[in-house]
């Protein structure tokens, strides 16, 4: 296997939220197979800058797969072809020299494009503000073992809390639904004693906000689960539905 790749990239370029966008084709040469996908885009941007062209805007931060900043629909797949892998952790060895790679932003009404491949994901922040928190009294920290948490519940809550809020679930869903995200955030609290006081109002407020932001509904196609870089499962969606029904029937 050769250690460098020559690739053709079809990249979505859009100057501003209101500007019409279009695909532009770029060629990159001698890309190391050890590079991450974002490093490959860095190389292209260096090239564009040296030519006096506008570099391609894309979101990135930690480049360690934990911050949820990176996105990109790569050849029609959120975060590219690998399971439980963010775009920043996707390596160029996954591609072959001569490949054509189509790169698009997340597409959803609730995630408007800001520029090129960068979308506005603040809808997720507003959903979190609506109910994705627990209220804690100020003062001394509570003793670590004062509240008993069954190990299984702690593990499940932790698994739900691994959601990094990147929006791949929305991007991959045929309905641009945010159910996997919201279900993970509702679950991580619903499973723990600390989440009980606000349990009902949380699910009702977060679902209402999710709908208000213009995300679609869930049709149980499970594409979100396959696309999630954090491995969030649709078990969470069933729990969200359960929490919603419970809140509807019992909350005062």
């Amino acid at each position, binding site marked *: 296997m050769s250690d460098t790749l020559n690739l053709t990239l079809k990249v979505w370029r859009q100057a501003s939220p209101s500007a019409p966008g279009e695909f532009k084709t770029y060629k990159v040469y001698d890309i190391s197979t050890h590079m991450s996908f974002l490093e490959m885009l860095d190389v292209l941007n260096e090239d564009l800058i040296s030519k006096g062209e506008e570099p391609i805007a894309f979101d990135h931060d930690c480049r360690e797969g934990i911050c949820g900043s990176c996105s990109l629909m790569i050849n029609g797949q959120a975060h590219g*072809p690998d399971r439980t892998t963010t775009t920043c952790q996707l390596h160029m060895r996954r591609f072959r020299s001569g490949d054509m790679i189509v790169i698009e932003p997340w597409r*959803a009404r609730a995630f408007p494009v800001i520029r090129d491949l960068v979308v506005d994901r603040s809808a997720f922040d507003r959903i979190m503000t609506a109910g994705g928190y627990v209220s804690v009294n100020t003062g001394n920290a509570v003793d670590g073992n004062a509240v008993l948490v069954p190990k299984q519940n702690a593990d499940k809550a932790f698994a739900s809390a691994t959601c990094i809020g990147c929006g791949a679930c929305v991007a991959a869903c045929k309905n641009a639904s945010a159910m996997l995200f919201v279900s993970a955030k509702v679950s991580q609290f619903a499973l723990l004693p600390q989440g009980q006081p606000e349990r009902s109002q949380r699910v009702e407020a977060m*679902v209402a906000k999710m709908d208000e932001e213009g995300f679609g509904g869930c049709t*149980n196609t499970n594409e979100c689960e396959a696309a999630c870089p954090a491995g969030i499962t649709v078990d969470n969606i069933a729990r969200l539905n359960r929490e919603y*029904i419970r809140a509807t029937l019992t909350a005062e």
Partner: protein
Amino acid sequence: MKRQTGGCCGLCWLWSSLSSTIGQKIVMALTGLALCGFLLVHLGGNLLLYVGEQKYNDYAHALHAQGALLLVAEIGLFAMFVIHIGLAFRTSFANAAARPIAYAMRQSKQDPGPLAQPPSGVMLATGIVVLVFLLVHLSDFKFFSVTRATGLRHQSVPADAAPFARAVGVLQDPISALVYFAGSLVLAYHVLHGFASAFQTLGLRHPKYTPLVKTLSLVFAIVVGVGFASFPFWAWTFR
């Protein structure tokens, strides 16, 4: 969250909850499961065609002798269909609106299953086919006399034919036979996803029971598909 209590009919809280994206899916799941129940009962009744002419006629007459009870059941069934179909279109439009700009390229990241096209992705399309099937079916049986009197179809079936003879006559109509055969298979494909999906929507997911629900969904789809598709096949080959 501010909750609306009192002031209206007393069920505004329920209406409000069922109006959300999740709420609408819960209603679709409940009506879908109810319609699945109807399918089984309907199939059971139809299978009497194979038991014998007399048994089938007796069953049909006994059913129609129910009078008011039958009317109530029919109104309930009609409501289930209207709600399920209405919400199907409503949620489909809302879901399509949630992505105004389509992707240039799309690839699934799921492991490929045994079916090239999983039923979950085409529920609206299969649902529309089933709706057409349903309308043809209603015109054939429920509104047989109207369909016949207006000269649309079924001129060859006597107007006063007994239920068994009428069923065979209708099933031997090429249009009906084709619609029933294809419609039954599409219906099976629709409920293959619908049955299991309803449980997920209702939050009924558990490591012990979900695999069973998926197996039941497959068995149910096969029973419905083979069961209903067998009637036109039987009418054309053995009658």
